[in-house]
């Protein structure tokens, strides 16, 4: 019966599914932090930090994630920097940096969309530059930034499948494992259903959130 193999190996799929979720959530959180900092630097930083942040965005956005993950897997390995050999940690690190570059651009466009008068008003009320960014600009920027950040998050869930190439035991990896073991391709359909459940749910939630934010403005 169709679906039998998937159900017989359900624990693999559940484990992979949870790993994919953990990887995506962790990398998105880190990417958000990286993005907020790098976007702030790109907008308000001095000349050198600004161009460094710009180069970070351009370099990581324009190179394949796969190559980046291979590179980090080698560089972080015990015989080089000796930080970690755990493919999950390497994938989390690589995905965070890659996604952080896209998050930076999304957040930066949100910052640039804010009326400069807001900053001037906050500054003339006596707020420091940091307080202005933290209390006035970022809270407003985050609202305009929800749709593009949502797209970044959706891409992240799909990109997390690339981590299987360095041996992270996430959904696609587990699906291929079961497929190899059972000489069947049915597990891959289970994998697709798993990713669809995640990305389509996210799209649904984001759609509702966008509508709410649009009213609140």
């Amino acid at each position, binding site marked *: 019966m169709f679906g039998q193999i998937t159900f017989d190996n359900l624990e693999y799929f559940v484990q992979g599914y949870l790993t994919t979720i953990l990887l995506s959530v962790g990398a998105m959180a880190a990417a958000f932090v990286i993005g907020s900092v790098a976007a702030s630097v790109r907008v308000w930083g001095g000349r050198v930090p600004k161009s460094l942040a*710009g180069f970070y965005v*351009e370099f990581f956005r324009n190179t394949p994630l796969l190559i980046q993950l291979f590179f980090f897997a080698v560089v972080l390995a015990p015989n080089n920097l000796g930080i970690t050999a755990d493919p999950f940690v390497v994938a989390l690190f690589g995905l965070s940096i890659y996604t952080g570059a896209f998050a930076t651009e999304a957040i930066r466009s949100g910052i640039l969309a804010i009326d400069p008068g807001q900053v001037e008003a906050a500054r003339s009320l006596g707020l420091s530059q940091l307080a202005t960014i933290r209390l006035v600009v970022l809270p407003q920027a985050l609202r305009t930034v929800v749709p593009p950040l949502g797209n970044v998050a959706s891409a992240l869930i799909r990109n997390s499948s690339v981590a299987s190439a360095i041996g992270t035991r996430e959904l696609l990896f587990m699906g291929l494992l079961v497929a190899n073991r059972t000489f069947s391709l049915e597990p891959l359909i289970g994998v697709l259903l798993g990713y669809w459940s995640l990305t389509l749910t996210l799209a649904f939630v984001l759609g509702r959130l966008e509508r709410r934010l649009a009213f609140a403005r």
Partner: protein
Amino acid sequence: MTAVTRARSAAAGLGGYLGLAALIAIVLVLVATGVLSERRWGPFGDVRVWRFILEGLLVTLQIGAVALIASLILAVPLALARLALPGPLRWIVVTWIELVRATPVLALILFLTLYMPRDLVSSLWAATIALTIYTSAVLAEILRAGILSIPRGEVDAARSLGLSYAKTMRLVVLPQAFSRMMPALVSQLITLVKDTSLVSIAAVSELAGYARSIHSFYGNPAETYFVIACIYFAINYTLSRVARRLELRRAKEPPVALPPELETAALQSPP
């Protein structure tokens, strides 16, 4: 735009190339001073290694070009079907586009390379078809946004001048939609070039696959992947500059409200 601001924005656009040049210069200095291993970097001073890399690059560009052209051809009927077909038929197309866009490209590539009968379709073609399926769905959405951004009055005007629906599309709507989708199209091309690297996992050797051969021969994986990353960067950064230039040219045209898929496309190439 004054000459000074124009020069400044041109210099800002070159930032990526300057950064790349600085990165390469740092590596060269560090190798010359002995901080970085000569044994591991040495192979990249060899012409034969570069000839080998170029061979892999050609495969990458071929896969990318074939997938791009095929996707463009497929995207037109997909977009028109989503816009014009009656109810149930349209829902089939909508479901197809949305499901494909929600699928990880790597899963799609592995799915097709494993499913296609090997003796009929080679892994190379199966992987190219997978990239085409994905890219055509994304391009269809971009094109649909482009078509929707054409004022309704133009269609009405063309129809009332006696043009058929097909002619209206071909002569009035699609040419304008294509020119509007150009920046977003080039951005998607960057994603496509990056995604071709995933093909190497399905045992098809292109640039990323050739990288594996190089480092397993010379024993220098980190260095090889660094060099390969720089090559991808040079290609994609150039494409992103093209996208930005197209967008600037578009910005000079009379302002028209663009749907979100087409807005600031070059600024936010899809991940």
